[in-house]
C-alpha cells in the first residue's frame, strides 16, 4: 500500500457539489501538480461530512483540520502554506462569530457532540471504493451472520437490540422480520425503501451517497435472516448521485464475491436489483412502493394483508428504510448490548436528523435517541441566527407537527413526540424563527399533500383540498371565525378515514399549529394581520375596492 504524507478529504456529497465543490477539487489537484507533490498528498472524495451549510468542506489529515466554504481560489494558499510549509490556513478554519477558530475537527462542538453509528463511515471513506469500506470492518457482520449464526439467531439479536424502523413509524424491526421468516414460501423479498421524499429530509440520500455498502450489507443480513435471496433498492430519481454510487457499489460487491451465489462459501445466495422511482411522494408508503416496483401506478393497497405476509408479487416482503438497514451491520457485529447503550430504553440507538431552516449550522446530525431538541438546535446546530428567536421546530415533514419553545427540552424519541401531537418521522428537522408564519407553514404542507395525494381515497383527495381552501382564505385575510372549528373537525375526520399513512397524517401540520399557535390563526381571521409579516393581504384590499366600487354604482 502506498503511504501518503497528507490525506485531503473533500466532501463530495450532493450539497457540497451544489455549493461549488467541483471547482475546488480541480484547483487543488492543479496546485499539487504545480508543486510536484501529487505523490505525497492523497486527495479523496468522501460522502457527506455533515456540516452541509458550510460547504464545500475539506478535512486534512493527519492533523484533522477542517476548512469550510473553500473556493477554487483558496487552493493555492492551502497547498503553499499548509501542505508545503506546515502552516494551516487559519482564515478558512471553522470558527464561531468573533471567537477563535477551532483547530481540529474533534474540538468543534458540531462534531464533538454527535454519536456516529449510522454515519460511521460518511465523510471518512471514499464511497466509490469497496476496499475502504472493508478496511472499516465492512462485510464483517455479514460474514459473521452467514458463517457463524443461524437465521433465527440473527433475528434474535435484532429483536434484543430493540432497533425500531427509522422510516418514521418506529415498528420493531426484529418483530417485523419474524413475521416474514415464519412464512412458508419459496420466494421472499427484501426492499430497501430509499424513496425519501419528506420535504426537509436528506439523511437517506447522504447515507446512500456516503456509505452505500452499509445499506447493501444490511439488506443481505436481512435476506439471510428471513430466507430471501432477492433485494430491491427503490431510490428516488431525484437523487442521481446516490443512484450512481449504488450502482457502483453493487458492481464492486459482485466482483469481490460478496454479492451473488454461495456467499462466503455457504449456501446463502443473494442478488440485488436497483430501481428508480419517478417522482411520486406517495411511493414512500410501503404498499404504494410495492405497486410501483411491479410497474403500476403508485397507489397504496389496503392493509391487511401486511407486506410481511403478502407483499411484492404476492410474496412475503420485508421493507426497511435506509437508515434502519445501515444500523444492522453494527448490531450484528458488536451485539445488542453495544447498541442498547445508546438512546433510551424504548428507543435504543441513534437517530440521524437533517437540520435545516433558520439555524446557524444546518446539516446532518446523528445523536442518541432521547436527546433534547434544545441540545440539537443550540449545542450542535449553534442556535438561531443572531437577532432572532426560536419559534418552533418542525419534525416529520408533511406528516408531522411543530414543537414550540415551551417543549424544547422534550427528549426526541418515538414515545415523547406523539404526546406533543407530532411524529418522529424520518428525520427532517426544520427550525423556524419569528419570521415564519405558522398559518403559512401549515398551508405550505397541505398544498404539498394536495399535490402528492394519489387520489385513490376520498378523504385524502377531497378533504385535504377543502382544508387547503380554508387555509388559503385565512392567509388572504378572508377567514371566518368558524374556520378554526371546521379545520379541526375535518382534520380529525381525515386522520380516521384515509386509506394510507400519507392521508392519515396529512392534517397533522394544521392540527399541531392550531394547538400551539391558535392566536396566530385568530390574528389572521379577526385582526386581518399576519404577525410574522409573511401573508400579504393586498388581495383583500383589491377585493374590497372592487366591492366598494360596485356599491358606489
Amino acid at each position, binding site marked *: 500500500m502506498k503511504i501518503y504524507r497528507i490525506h485531503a478529504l473533500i466532501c463530495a456529497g*450532493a*450539497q457540497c*457539489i*451544489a*455549493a461549488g465543490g467541483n471547482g475546488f477539487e480541480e484547483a487543488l489537484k492543479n496546485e499539487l501538480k504545480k508543486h510536484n507533490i501529487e505523490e505525497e498528498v492523497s486527495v479523496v472524495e468522501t460522502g457527506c461530512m455533515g456540516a*452541509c*451549510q458550510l*460547504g464545500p468542506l475539506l478535512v486534512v489529515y493527519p492533523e484533522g483540520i477542517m476548512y469550510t466554504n473553500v473556493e477554487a481560489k483558496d487552493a493555492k494558499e492551502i497547498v503553499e502554506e499548509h501542505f508545503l510549509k506546515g502552516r494551516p490556513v487559519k482564515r478558512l478554519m471553522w470558527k464561531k462569530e468573533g471567537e477563535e477558530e477551532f483547530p481540529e475537527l474533534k474540538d468543534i462542538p458540531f462534531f464533538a457532540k454527535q454519536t456516529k453509528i449510522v454515519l460511521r463511515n460518511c465523510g471518512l471513506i471514499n464511497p466509490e471504493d469497496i476496499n475502504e469500506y472493508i478496511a472499516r470492518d465492512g462485510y464483517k457482520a455479514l460474514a459473521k451472520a452467514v458463517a457463524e449464526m443461524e437465521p433465527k439467531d440473527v433475528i434474535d439479536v435484532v429483536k434484543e437490540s430493540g432497533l425500531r424502523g427509522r422510516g418514521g413509524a418506529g415498528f420493531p424491526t426484529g418483530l417485523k422480520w419474524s413475521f416474514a421468516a415464519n412464512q412458508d414460501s419459496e420466494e421472499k423479498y427484501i426492499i430497501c425503501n430509499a424513496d*425519501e*421524499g*419528506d*420535504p*426537509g*429530509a*436528506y439523511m437517506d*440520500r447522504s447515507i446512500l451517497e456516503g456509505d452505500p455498502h452499509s445499506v447493501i450489507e444490511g439488506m443481505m443480513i436481512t435476506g439471510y435472516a428471513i430466507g430471501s435471496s*432477492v433485494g430491491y433498492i427503490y431510490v428516488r*430519481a*431525484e*437523487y*442521481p*448521485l446516490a443512484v450512481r454510487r449504488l450502482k457502483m457499489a453493487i458492481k464492486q460487491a459482485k466482483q469481490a464475491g460478496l454479492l451473488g451465489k454461495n456467499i462466503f462459501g455457504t449456501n446463502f445466495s443473494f*442478488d440485488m*436489483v436497483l*430501481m*428508480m*422511482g*419517478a*417522482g*411520486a*411522494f406517495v411511493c414512500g408508503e410501503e404498499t404504494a412502493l410495492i405497486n*410501483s*416496483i*411491479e*410497474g*403500476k*401506478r*403508485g397507489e397504496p393497497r389496503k392493509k391487511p394483508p401486511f407486506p410481511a405476509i403478502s407483499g411484492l*408479487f404476492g410474496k412475503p416482503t420485508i421493507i426497511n428504510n435506509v437508515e434502519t438497514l445501515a444500523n444492522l451491520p453494527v448490531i450484528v457485529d458488536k451485539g445488542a448490548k453495544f447498541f442498547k447503550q445508546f438512546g433510551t430504553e424504548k428507543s435504543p440507538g441513534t437517530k440521524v436528523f*437533517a*437540520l*435545516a*431552516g*433558520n439555524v446557524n449550522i*444546518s*446539516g446532518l446530525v446523528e445523536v442518541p435517541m432521547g436527546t433534547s431538541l434544545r441540545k440539537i438546535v443550540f449545542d450542535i446546530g449553534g442556535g438561531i441566527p443572531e437577532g432572532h428567536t426560536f419559534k418552533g421546530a*418542525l419534525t416529520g415533514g408533511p406528516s408531522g407537527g411543530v414543537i414550540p419553545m415551551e417543549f424544547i427540552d422534550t427528549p426526541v424519541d418515538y414515545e415523547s413526540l406523539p404526546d406533543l401531537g407530532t411524529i418522529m418521522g424520518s428525520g*427532517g428537522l*426544520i427550525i*423556524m424563527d419569528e419570521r*415564519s408564519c405558522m398559518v403559512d*407553514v401549515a398551508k*405550505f*404542507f397541505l398544498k*404539498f399533500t394536495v*399535490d*402528492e395525494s*394519489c387520489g385513490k381515497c376520498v378523504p385524502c383527495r377531497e378533504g385535504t383540498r377543502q382544508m387547503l381552501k380554508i387555509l388559503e382564505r385565512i392567509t388572504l385575510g378572508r377567514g371566518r371565525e368558524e374556520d378554526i372549528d371546521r379545520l379541526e373537525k375535518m382534520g380529525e375526520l381525515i386522520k380516521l378515514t384515509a386509506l394510507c399513512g400519507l392521508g392519515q397524517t396529512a392534517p397533522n401540520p394544521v392540527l399541531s399549529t392550531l394547538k400551539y399557535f391558535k392566536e396566530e390563526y385568530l390574528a389572521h381571521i379577526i385582526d386581518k394581520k399576519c404577525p410574522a409579516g409573511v401573508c400579504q393581504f393586498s388581495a383583500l384590499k383589491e377585493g374590497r375596492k372592487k366591492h366598494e366600487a360596485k356599491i358606489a354604482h
Partner: protein
Amino acid sequence: MKQKSLIDVLHDTQEEEEKNYLSRNKMIEIAKTTKISETKVYGVSTFYTMFSVYPRGKHIIRVCRNLSCHLSDAEKIAEKLKEILNVDFGETTEDGEFTLEESSCLGMCSVSPAMTIDDEPFGNLVVENISEILLKVKEGSKK
C-alpha cells in the same frame, strides 16, 4: 427474477427520446412488447411527475419548492427563472432548450434555495447568478 419493471422501461424510453417525453407511438409500442394494456401504460406514464406525455426541452430544470427553500426566498429564484426563460412551470422555452418544473424536495436544504438542471445540483442560489448558470448549461451541451 421477474421481467423489467414498466417504470424502468418508461425511464429508458424517455431518456432515448431527444425531447424527453413519451410519445403516443412509443407508449403503444411499449404496450405491445410488455403485453400491458395501452390504458395502463398511459395511466402509469401520467401518474409519475418525472414522465411527460408532452414534448419537453433538452434540459429539465427542477426548482426545489420545499419549506427550507421557501423560507430562504426560493420564490424569487423561481420568478427570475420564469422571467429569463419566459415560461411558466410545466412549459418549455421557444428554442426547445429548457423545460421549467417544480420538485417537492431535492434534499438539499442546507444549501437552499436549490435546483437541479438534468442531473447536476445547484445550491445557494442568488438571483444574480441564474442567467450565468443557464448560459453555462446551454453552452456545455453544445460541446
